[in-house]
């Protein structure tokens, strides 16, 4: 039996990687992937807790998160394509039309 803390440490590591990637990367697709990484880090902690406490609700949450992530991926990729078509760049720092 792997202790709960290992899962949580891995989960935290994955989430941290996501956060750091989100903060330091400029490419939208990379940022998008970082978000997926954070989501999955959280998912991991959900299932770990569900297994530990023998409670199903944690696993059900994971399904919801995956559904939302899938929908988000579809919409997000569509937006990225639209952005690329109009701005011909994927650098977020240059997508700043709303900035004064």
């Amino acid at each position, binding site marked *: 039996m792997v202790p709960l803390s290992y899962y949580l440490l891995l989960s935290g590591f994955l989430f941290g990687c996501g956060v750091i990637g*989100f*903060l*330091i990367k400029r490419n939208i697709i990379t940022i998008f992937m970082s978000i997926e990484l954070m989501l999955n880090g959280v998912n991991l902690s959900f299932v770990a807790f569900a297994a530990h406490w023998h409670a199903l609700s944690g696993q059900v949450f994971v399904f919801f998160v995956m559904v939302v992530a899938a929908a988000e991926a579809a919409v997000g990729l569509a937006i990225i394509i639209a952005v690329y078509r109009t701005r011909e760049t994927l650098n*977020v*720092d240059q997508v700043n039309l709303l900035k*004064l």
Partner: protein
Amino acid sequence: MNPNLNLWLIPLLPLAGAAINGFWGKKSSRNAVTAVALFFSGAAFAMALLVALRFSSLALPYHEFFAHWIRSGNFTADFSFYLDQLSLVMLLVVTGVGFLIHIYSVGYMWDDPSYYRFFSYLNLFMFFMLTLVLADNYLLMFIGWEGVGLASYLLIGFWFTKDSAASAGKKAFIVNRIGDFGFLIALFLLIKHFGSLNFDRVFGSVMPLGVETAGAGLLTAIGILLMVGACGKSAQIPLYIWLPDAMEGPTPVSALIHAATMVTAGVYMVSRSHVIFERAPIALTVVAIIGTLTAFFAATIGIAQTDIKKVLAYSTVSQLGYMFMACGAGAFSAGIFHLMTHAFFKGLLFLGAGSVIHAVGGEQDMRKMGGLKSFIPWTFLTMGIATLAIAGIPPLAGFWSKDEILWKAYQASPVYWAIGVITAFITSFYMFRLLYMTFFGDYHGAQVDEHGHGSHGHASHGNDDHGHGSPHESPMVMLVPLMILAVLSLVGGLVGIGDRFENFLAPVFGAREVAEAGSRRTELLLMGISVAVAVLGERLANLLYYKRPELPQRIADSLDGLYEAVVHKYYIDELYAAIFVKPLIDGSTRILWQGVDRNIIDAAVNDAGDVARQASDEVRHMQSGNIRSYAGWVAAGAAAVIAFMIWMGVR
């Protein structure tokens, strides 16, 4: 059971006139404004006459409930009216003289661009004055009291573009506030101790109380505070200073408000409260002393004034002093009697002065008049009658009332009487001085017309365009009120013969013991003395201002310091400015404005703003517009929250 008199209509009619002229007068023609103003004030007069006709069949005092106002626990104050002999006299004087002055004003103010505004204010004044007179509780009376103050302020400052008029209005208002403060405190005391302001209930509770002989008590305090209020409104020492300045208003206003009606409100109020005063001898003495001193001092100032309206203003103050002297002597009916006759002859004097000013094109300096009797014979005739009346020449109105007062004062204390007689002499002197300077001798006005009308800024005066050529008589619309008032001044005193006026008012003031037998001789002697001093005053004025016009200057020169003091009204205005006004202004400027307002309140607000601005200056760099930096802040925030929760969990 009393018939319904609809008393509420009497004050509300002029209010309707004021509203109509105030809201629509600007767009109406002068004729329409005139019609409205005269109709509503005339209707009030007609109603008052109707009331007088049915008066004998009434059970008095007559109460009329109009509407609820304040009902709070046991305390009530309603819009309800009270009619007895005293209010009837006031009602007739206010509406009658008021209506005459409305008519006069049509002629006097015809050329003024703000004609409608004038009549709106004048009607408004009538409304408040009638409310004051008819109120059946002190609170409603106070509404009228404040309201006439407002109307007075508006009308003194009627030509508000003129600086002196605007500040005279302010002065009148502020000085009156001081008096009103005393009045208000008196009302609070009444509420606290008697739980009511209703006349019947207050007097009903006061009636059983004994006379406060040993030291001062509650009633004395109330009485003196009421007198403070009366001092403000009726221009008595020490608050008389606003009335002479109030002459900046149009002359009909001076006649109506500052001579005939409003300034007598204090006398009315004191008389109405006679139940309280009669039980507070100290308060009565205060009233008598203030009245006597005012009568004397104002009369002496009147001697040296050269502005025709200022002479009349000081004369008014002095005559009001007589009325208070009477009240203080316990002879309230004599005071009210003088109030009535004074309304006739002083109203007439002011209207006559207005006619004179009208005739000479806005000039008010008597030194630039003279010899006017051939130019304006009717004005001369009516003013002559009024002068005889105020001087106390029998059988004109002023003689009867003034003599009544002096007689009553003599019974109270010969000192009052002595000062009263000296004042009567001075009164006669300065009134005939006015008459001789204005109407006799040679006309000194011609050169004035060429030199741009002297120092009195009557560019704003309604009658400016009459300023050239020789003096001319006023139109009929101005002369008729003069004549009516002249007739009243002639015969108005006759109602007092044989104590008929006193007996009429006796139900209000209570029958006083009939003058002791044997004093009839004294009364006649005193009467003779007062007539003698009146004639003496006339002879002196005749000598100084008619036969030997160079004499007054020589006398003035020989009395250098005293004369200067009198000309400058004993420097009272300067004294008040030094004692009250300047410390107030300095204190307000240095402590309240620069100290408290600027250094504490403003500083607190400004510093709070500065702190906020500097803090936001620091934190605004967070909002760079860079999305990833925002995400970083979110992450940092989340990390901080988690760290906090962990730390709390560890503890």
